[in-house]
């Protein structure tokens, strides 16, 4: 994995957003022409409880600099109870990643409702700034990315 290190470096941040709250909130931010950094890419999922922690590991492995999981506020889940499971799952996962050396700022979870466009914007701005300050993620990044094969040779 070539380390991207120049002054124009922009982090790649992945956001899993639940379809009913945060994705709607993100759309609303657009409707209101709010501005936020370009480095967040959203993956739409039906519910934050759909997000398997293995996706998070995969994102770091593939070179994401930060991962964000967003869902409805507890109690507001479109599917009634999904985000309660999300909450437990990622409270533990966050600590586990931290324990394994990932900066807690690189993995964050947030409840953002469909009306909280501003919160979505603020969250993206904040996470983006925090990760930019941290620099490129080098932990858990795949050592076997094929560009190694393309550029270098064996071993």
């Amino acid at each position, binding site marked *: 994995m070539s380390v991207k290190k120049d002054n124009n470096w922009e982090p790649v941040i992945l956001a899993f957003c639940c379809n009913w709250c945060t994705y709607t909130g993100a759309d609303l931010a657009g409707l209101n022409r709010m501005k936020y950094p370009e480095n967040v890419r959203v993956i739409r999922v039906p519910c934050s409880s759909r997000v398997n922690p293995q996706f998070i590991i995969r994102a770091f492995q593939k070179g994401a600099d930060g991962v964000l999981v967003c869902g409805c506020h507890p109690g507001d889940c479109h599917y009634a109870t999904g985000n309660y499971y999300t909450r437990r799952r990622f409270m533990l996962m966050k600590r586990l990643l931290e324990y394994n050396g990932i900066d807690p700022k690189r993995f964050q979870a947030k409840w953002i409702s469909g009306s909280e466009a501003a919160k979505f914007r603020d969250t993206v701005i904040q996470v983006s700034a925090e990760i930019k300050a941290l620099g490129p993620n080098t932990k858990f990044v795949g050592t*076997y*990315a*094929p*560009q190694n*094969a*393309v550029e270098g*040779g*064996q*071993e």
Partner: protein
Amino acid sequence: MILAKKDLDQALGILSQDAEVFVPIIELIEDKSGIKEPAFEKKFMPYFEGAAVGLDNFNTVKPPKDVLFPNVEKLYKYKTGENAYIQEILPEDKPKVLFGVRPCDMRSIDSMDKVFFTKEYVDSYYAKRRDLVTIVAIGCLDTQRTCFCDSMGIDPNDAPTADVMMNVTKTSRTKACPVTGCTIPEDDGSYILEARTEKGQALLEKIKALCTEDGSEEACKDTVCKLKIEKDPKLDEKLSTMFEHPIWDKITKGCIGCGTCTFVCPTCYCFDIDNENYGAEGCKYRCWDSCMFSDYTRMAGGANPRPTKKERLRNRYMHKLSYFNERYGETLCVGCGRCIENCPAHLDISEFIEKASKVDADAKEYSEADFAGKEAR
């Protein structure tokens, strides 16, 4: 040629100048939390200055096979769609030295050679690595309790196919290793090196300056294995009639189906081929696989010719002790003892060899109680 033990590091340094020298090194993984004692790992790794070289009498957990047959090895890269291509990735041209290979492991490399070089196809990847490697074998000074290579027809003091054979001199004294506690020669001991091939000759040329030619020194060649087993010399043929023998049901019961024995085995060479994609581009690689894994032979529809651990372990033992003989004329088990030492379920191939040697090949029943006398304490 005689190389004083104290000059070993220097010799390795010289060899490292134009080759990657793989040598058993005791590596320390420091536990900074201070809760557990630091862990030691002994493995073949490239020599570096200051490395704690451990040419002592403990075998490495991982055999040296990965220098010739890496755990993961890229085969070719490709691109799909527009401008599709397939491009071979061969190993680098860098010469390597495998230094301190034990006779059992040397024999395992011979077996690998047979697999990868004969029977119609030559494996290009293995061949390239093999051609670039010079192997310095070392005669064992002491053996582990799980060592039984001499029962398998291997002399722990000599590795005939090595490029260079190295033995401790008879006058060398030994002491306990301050780190691991095992037996090692004292610093004032020395090694006798003997080139067996041109490659070996060339290697010794490089360190000639460090060596002396003292004809009075004699190599220490009286090491015997701690573990002696009674093996039927025709066990391979006997086993070939024992495919349905009830012994298999019994001895495979304890197996937990992990791949430890195959990955620590110096002669296990099975591999899988898979790919890793990166957008339209990707890379095909091969990696070690284990016949003990349930998915090893499972077919796309779900049917599996070896559905349970019984069939899988039977295949492994049969492969080591019978099939390989039939195909290549030698036993694939070299008696290094690694699988005995590391098996989570404490399965013991030497025990199987003994039992299989003794049982009636046509027996319809099998009981461990028949062997109780020997084992019960």
